[in-house]
């Protein structure tokens, strides 16, 4: 027996930590880690609602989110490595070539 709002508040805390990490970090790999935290918060919500509504669909969407996160990390780290090769730095605030 477990009450739904406790799980949701845990997810909200994970999400807020991720928001802070994306905004405050300047290292691109750390920004990707913070994005993973936010995706996990969404997964916690999906599984919690799946359990409380007695419907397996939420878990399946959590699995889909995990697959998309894996694709996102693969592409993201490839971009980071490419950036490091070209600029010798992965600080996101120094990548302003497209900003005028």
């Amino acid at each position, binding site marked *: 027996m477990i009450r739904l709002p406790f799980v949701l508040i845990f997810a909200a805390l994970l999400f807020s930590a991720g928001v802070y990490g994306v905004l405050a970090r300047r290292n691109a790999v750390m920004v990707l880690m913070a994005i993973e935290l936010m995706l996990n918060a969404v997964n916690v919500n999906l599984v919690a609602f799946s359990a409380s509504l007695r419907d397996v669909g939420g878990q399946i969407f959590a699995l889909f989110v995990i697959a998309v996160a894996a*694709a996102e990390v693969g592409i993201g780290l490839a971009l980071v490595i490419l950036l490091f090769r070209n600029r010798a730095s992965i600080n996101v605030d120094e990548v302003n070539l497209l900003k005028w």
Partner: protein
Amino acid sequence: MTAQEYAFAVIAAVGSISAIAVVTARNVVHAALYLVVALLSVGATFLLLGAEFAGWVQILIYVGAIVILFLFGLMLTKAPIGRDALDNTRRWLGLLVGLGVFAGLVFLIQDAFPLDGKAFEAFHATTAAVGDSIFREFILPFEAISFLLLAALIGAIVLARKDEGN
């Protein structure tokens, strides 16, 4: 409070502390290891809620594969150590936004689902039920996800390989 809620409280406390440590750590490798603990506590939450398959997939894929990818990324980019090298100078603004998001979400959650509301039993969805549902109702999104994963794989190889021409 039931036994399950006590167990969840311990898991959530460990997960919350390590999630905050991920975004405040001064050493990138420490941050990656804190991320392992945070992801494990999310997996334990899944298992506690009865989502067996999702829980083990979470532990295998996130802790087993994605964190290793992060560690490879850190090794290949010679990440610096120290707060000034990792955080930008206006992090207090990020802290303000993060706390604002947390306060807003908690207000909305306790508004929609009262804290002393009805508790629910863990929902034991077997792996058979999950597979049945994926290949019966969600076959189209499943195929779309597999195509996306293939495209991401090819894209990552194309991006990260060295050009042989120059």
